[in-house]
């Protein structure tokens, strides 16, 4: 089997991107592009699932792998792409965004994510992440007429390119000290000499973790996220909060387990610090937000902290709880963003949620479901996710961190339930929102189903999430 077969999901996305570019001038409604993107995403997900049955393989001279871990995240990324494409319908028409180009960027960003999660080499990893980030810059600034969007794009570009530089510097230092960029080479060099043999290695590892922490917006590398989310149109914010975070977590997981697996103790200190800070800062700053997208941005920062808890242990079991967390996080966050998008202008402000449940009971109930899941209250997926990562932190002996994590879930309950109070216990001030486009309803339904079923019957997903 040729090496190209390992990249079938990526090739599908790139193929669709090329087709969209070619026919760009003929696309008159957003719907066509949406259908194309969603079909490509579904095909990529199916291809990932099909490849999964072939077992573990490596290709391209050991730079790309096909294993349960990469396919898990590819399916997750494809789902995130499909849902984001669905909810973009209205924004594209309202903001007069170039239809084909927008979707091409989404497709290419997803390709980059998929490439990075299957990378077994620091270079392919970097290429994948940069493809993702490059497309994201443009996506954030795609509403050219809006000054806030431009500002957000520039901020995001400046900070993220700094992060990329850090990552690249870390990679080059690693190459200089270990003589290789492949994960196996790094791991064997480390197990031979140990981290202490060369202080540059410690610096290299720290720089790489910092660079990746930027990508997933973990504290103290988070400052770009709220501005970028707020300035970007909501579907793009949703895409940044879900797909790119999942990819970043996947990459961080593989690097920490495979490349630096023998140095788990040093790494766990760094990761524990990132996790604790993200949970504390994300939760506390979310308390003060009145803009929904900023609120969700800070909430996503806190959630990254929770997801990192699984990686602290440095064990495959721990990493698999992070996989589960990432999976459910993507769907519940996308669900919350779907509601924000469904409500249009009204959804972007906390005040807009007043009386929503009385006007539109179904949307209110779904938002409540996503909020409960984000809080981590059973029987929603968020609870299963939280249970897993805290179990993993406990296994790693970080009891204080586990207590901190649950204590801040009470703080987060206050954040999310404030929205619920507005929806259910206040009188409406604005007219009822108009009916939803079919695409948005479909995305909402998918997100809600995963959030609910994932909470009630998580068994098969938990069994499926196997880390390298």
């Amino acid at each position, binding site marked *: 089997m040729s090496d190209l077969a390992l990249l079938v999901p990526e090739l599908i996305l790139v193929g669709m991107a090329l087709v969209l570019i070619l026919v760009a001038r003929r696309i008159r409604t957003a719907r066509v592009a949406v259908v194309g993107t969603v079909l490509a995403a579904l095909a990529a997900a199916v291809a990932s699932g099909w490849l999964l049955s072939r077992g573990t393989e490596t290709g391209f001279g050991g730079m790309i792998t096909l294993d349960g871990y990469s396919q898990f995240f590819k399916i997750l990324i494809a789902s995130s792409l499909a849902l984001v494409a669905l909810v973009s319908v209205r924004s594209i028409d309202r903001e007069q965004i170039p239809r084909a180009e927008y979707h091409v960027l989404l497709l290419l960003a997803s390709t980059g994510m998929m490439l990075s999660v299957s990378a077994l080499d620091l270079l392919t990893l970097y290429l994948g992440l940069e493809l993702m980030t490059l497309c994201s810059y443009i996506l954030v600034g795609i509403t050219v007429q809006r000054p806030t969007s431009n500002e957000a794009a520039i901020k995001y570009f400046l900070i993220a390119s700094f992060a990329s530089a850090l990552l690249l510097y870390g990679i080059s230092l690693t190459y200089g000290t270990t003589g290789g960029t492949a994960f196996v080479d790094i791991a064997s060099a480390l197990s031979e000499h140990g981290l202490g043999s060369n202080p540059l290695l410690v610096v290299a590892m720290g720089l790489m973790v910092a660079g990746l922490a930027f990508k997933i917006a973990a504290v103290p590398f988070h400052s770009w996220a709220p501005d970028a989310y707020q300035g970007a149109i909501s579907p793009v914010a949703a895409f940044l909060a879900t797909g790119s975070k999942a990819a970043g977590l996947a990459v961080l997981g593989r690097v920490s387990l495979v490349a630096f697996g023998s140095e788990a103790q040093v790494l766990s200190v760094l990761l524990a610090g990132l996790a604790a800070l993200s949970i504390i800062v994300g939760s506390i700053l979310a308390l003060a937000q009145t803009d929904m997208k900023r609120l969700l941005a800070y909430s996503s920062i806190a959630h990254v902290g929770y997801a990192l808890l699984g990686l602290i242990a440095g064990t495959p079991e721990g990493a698999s709880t992070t996989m589960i967390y990432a999976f459910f996080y993507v769907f519940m966050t996308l669900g919350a963003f779907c509601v924000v998008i469904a409500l249009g202008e009204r959804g972007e402000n906390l005040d807009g949620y007043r009386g929503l449940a009385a006007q539109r009971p179904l949307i209110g109930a779904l938002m409540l479901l996503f909020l409960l899941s984000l809080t981590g209250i059973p029987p929603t997926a968020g609870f299963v996710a939280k249970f897993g990562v805290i179990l993993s932190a406990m296994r790693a002996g970080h009891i204080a961190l586990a207590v901190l994590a649950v204590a801040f879930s009470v703080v987060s309950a206050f954040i999310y339930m404030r929205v619920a*109070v507005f929806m259910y216990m206040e009188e409406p001030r604005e007219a009822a929102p108009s009916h939803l486009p079919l695409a948005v309803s479909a995305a909402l339904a998918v997100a809600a189903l995963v959030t609910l079923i994932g909470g009630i019957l998580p068994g098969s997903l938990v069994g499926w999430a196997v880390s390298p």
Partner: protein
Amino acid sequence: MSAYPVLSVTTFLPLAGAVLILLMGRERLARWVALATTVATLAVSAPLYWHFDKSSSALQFVESAEWIPAWNIAYGMGVDGISLPFIFLAAVLSVLCVGASWTAIQTRTRGFYAALLVAETAMIGLFSAANLFLFFIFWELIIVPLFLLIGIWGSSGRVYAAVKFLLFTLAGSVLMLVGMIALHHTCGTLDFKALALARQSLQPEQQAWLFAAFLAAFAVKVPMFPVHTWLPDAHTEAPTAGSVILAGILLKMGAYGFLRVSLPILPDAVRLFLKPMLVISAVAIVYGAYVTLVQKDVKRLIAFSSVSHMGFVTLGIFTLTRSGVEGAILQMINHGIVTAALFLCVGMIYERTHTREIKDYGGVGKIAPVYSTLLALFCLAAAGFPGLNSFVGEFLIIGGAFETRGWLGAMAVWGVALGTTYLLWLYYRVVMGKTNPGLVGLELELNSREVATLAPLALLALCLGLYPELVLSYLRAPVAALLAGVAP
């Protein structure tokens, strides 16, 4: 033994009813569906009482299925003599809640009855859970419908009360989550039976920390002094059905947690914490009673009386004597019946007068004799009048307290005396004396629906008062086994 999963059916039937109500477009049908569902739930739970083997202390009607095999977590249901009476109580109170809300709830009725039914699922599920994971899920599940019930259909201060309720209970239960995960990490299982067997692998120090973590959750729910402050607000602001569920079942969940988790799994820690627990309970009894005395709001008064009454329950449990524990469980059932009835009584008259201030009442007896008679019955029952249900429970608890420490028994007796004072004084101010001018011309007498709502509780109060064996016979075997496990 019936072959079909009677516990799961009883637990999830209300949930199915809730879904049905939400799917139906008609607001006016909601209460009928809710009534049918709650009655059906009571009916399908009947085999539990017929086929129950009272001589066994093991879990019965056990169901188990694979759930999350990768984490060694299974779906497990089962009841013993301790949990069975609570399932009955929850099923009965749910029917009565629908009856009490029949005309009181006029807005967004579908949501109201759906929330009520979800709460019923959580209540029954909690008492049927055979493992800690499922227990925790139902424990948390009940928070959501009650948060909505208080916050949407409550009275003027509802939002504050709802948020306070949510944050207090959540703060307690997240520590239980940590405790549960620590237990899972140490013992590798969450099944109650397996945990009780695996407890040897827990160091005494670990047990103490775990006990503290679970205590945080249970103490908030009971509620024990000094974390009771959410209760008066929640009870007062909640709609009648919400108060009934809170007082009738929710408060018992905490004490049930002690019996299901702390005593069997963490016995060393229980003995270690015995003294502080007894002291806190005694303080709750006396302090709660004094605070109750000065209340001016009827609902707040009954709410605070719960603090005192639940102090009896925790006192009984931590005497670790047979009569104390049996009395505590019986008292939980009694308190569930009587306090629920008192809240129903208050709710019914509030619907007509729209005031809860005691000073706005007076002389109700002349206008509403049937109401006053029932209220007298429930007030006397709550005060521990011989021949009515609470007497037996309190008597057993006080017996257990005297067995342990003389001064504990003295405190408990003091609490009973104060209880009689505030209840009879309440009755005096509301029912006797001159008719308050504000009440003249109001139709205060109960209609037949309301009498039918109160009658089952009156009947239960009488039956349990005259023949407590109805409940005690279920308790004997499991309580003996429980205490044998705690003994050093």
